[in-house]
């Protein structure tokens, strides 16, 4: 089996997050793979619908939950449109896990601040559950999550679950005009809400993921709050094909995002040409 040949996985659950965003739960067909498959928070894979092709997403479920993986995607392109059509029992392809990961073990004893915008919550959700499944090992956990509208918030059931826990501080926000009558969260863009939430930066790390504009605008705010560039982690979502450091597509300056990333610190990002 060459490195480009996918594993087969059965879709065991389909969850509609929003009108255009869906989560699939996948279980590997091969029993040996199902039992031996491990990954780290932040790693990604190549998901495929045979006939439509492959697409790159992070593994959105945490490594602390074995036996399955999940991916969340917005139906915008050819492959994601085809993935949108699959049902429970259908078979898809998966190659991975690829890339580096969030250094969660290095964060023991630290406070963790998660900041996500839109579908950017998918890679962050993997880390959130990873941290919550090992809750005793970490300090305060703060989540700031924003989307365009209430409808566009993904993982709604989990947002409620996190909000109901007394060991998590969560602030959700929607863009002005995106709120509903009964919305009790914040109204405003993610960046000012992070500033207002003002998580303590001492002995803390921040995990940031979202559309390029959210990342760009939020970095200076985290800096202002006192987060060092080395303590801010993000994950780049460049277009990829092979995921194996061969096809050349995800190259940014000296970096192969699929091999050297997708997880980078803000300090590393600042060293890169602005081609992401």
């Amino acid at each position, binding site marked *: *089996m*060459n*490195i*480009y*040949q*996918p594993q*087969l996985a059965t879709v065991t659950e389909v969850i509609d997050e929003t009108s255009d965003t869906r989560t699939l739960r996948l279980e590997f067909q091969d029993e040996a793979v199902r039992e031996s498959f491990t990954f780290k928070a932040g790693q990604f894979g190549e998901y*495929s619908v*045979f*006939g*439509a*092709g*492959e697409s790159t997403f992070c593994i959105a479920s945490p490594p602390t939950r074995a036996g399955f993986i999940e991916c969340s995607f917005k139906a*915008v*392109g050819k492959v*994601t449109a085809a993935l949108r059509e699959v049902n429970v*029992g*259908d*078979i898809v*392809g998966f190659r991975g896990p690829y890339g580096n990961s969030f250094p969660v073990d290095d964060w023991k004893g630290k406070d963790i601040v998660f900041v996500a915008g839109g579908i950017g919550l998918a890679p962050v959700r993997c880390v959130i559950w990873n941290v919550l499944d090992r809750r005793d090992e970490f300090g305060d956990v703060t989540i700031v999550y924003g989307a365009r509208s209430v409808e566009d918030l993904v993982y709604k059931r989990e947002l409620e679950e996190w909000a109901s826990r007394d060991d998590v501080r969560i602030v959700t926000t929607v863009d002005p005009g995106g709120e509903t009558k009964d919305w009790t969260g914040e109204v405003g863009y993610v960046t000012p809400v992070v500033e207002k939430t003002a998580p303590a930066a001492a002995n803390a790390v921040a995990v940031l993921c979202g*559309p*390029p504009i959210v990342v760009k605008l939020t970095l200076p705010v985290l800096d202002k709050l006192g987060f060092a560039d080395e303590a801010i982690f993000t994950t780049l*979502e*460049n*277009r990829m*094909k*092979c995921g*194996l*450091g*061969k*096809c*050349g*597509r995800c*190259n*940014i*300056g*000296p970096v*192969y995002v699929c*091999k050297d990333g997708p997880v980078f610190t803000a300090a590393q990002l600042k060293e890169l*040409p602005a*081609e*992401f």
Partner: protein
Amino acid sequence: MSDGRFFISESDLRALAADLLGAGTEVIAPVAVDACASPAAMASSACMRPGMEPEDLEYRALTDASQLDLGRGLPILSLKGYFLPEHEALCRWKQKGTTIEIEAVPTEFAPRVVLAAKPCDSAALAVVDEVMNWDYQDELWNGRRAATTIINLACPVIDESCFCTAVGAAPDATTGADGLLMPVKDGYVLEATTEKGRALVEAHKARLVGSVPAETLGRQAADERSAASARVAGNLEIDAGSVRDWIDTHFEDPLLASLAIRCNGCGACSSVCPTCHCFDIVDEEEGVGRGTRRRCWDTCQSPTFTLHASGHNPRDDQNARYRQRINHKFAIYPLRFGEVLCTGCGRCTRVCHAGQDLVEILQAIDIAARRPDEAEAAAAPEPAPAAPEPVTS
């Protein structure tokens, strides 16, 4: 001859090719082909003129040893396609009801021999070996590499677009190959440089002469070697290390950002390049519920190469895409793998219908890298003419 070098006449070289073909071994070599054979070429004026029969040189699998072209011209395409085909199957799928079966593709290949390869083309394979093996092993590439014995034919240097010596290659090098044919009076000196090359020599000893005075052969060969090297060095001399470091530290420099002024992004340079290896992976349906997943050549010069599904494109203009090409070849790849992603074959310059000339471009970067003051003086804008008075009526 005890030094591992042998004499072989041209007729014996063809006989050796015939022996290989007779034994069922694929032999790939330069072959003169009808340049007007493709539908696209039919529109070319040369092909429409009566009596004109333009020929191209291509690496082809020989069907007869007489096809072997020893004229030492440059094949239009490099050897790349024999190791990374223009498109190739990665796996096949077949759907049966709700189940899917995946059929693996073979990663072992039948032995084959390349004769009269260009040294710049074999060198390119050694360069690309690095990216194909730096972490994950690309078995399809490696399988074809392992199955292939490559014998170079020393190059006389084609034209002013050649610059192999500027990027660490040479017209008589055996990098990436298993042996070298060096033209001498009435034939060639054949020297095997690897185990695979020695095995080929051993199997075809009957065609080789080992009793010609080594000294004579050596001197003839040495004369041609130094003449060719001097000729190509006259086309371009750069300090590849300075070029690498300058590109790495001058991403936003106007020189790098203006190099693409003539480029219109067709990507022909990537197709003909022996080292460009970027690829796409696509699914091809071949009937209901079955098909092939393929990889096919792609190019960083295409706007869709980096285009996100969201519409965001990190390299959204041709200057950025051309800079990426130069950056990847002369800075990113050398910094990562220690090798320049270019062997100076010059095909990109010859094929470019817009006139992008890599020799000129590398010269300009080398000047900027080595003599920053001179580059600044050359780049200094002419004093701007006074703006004409607006005409009022």
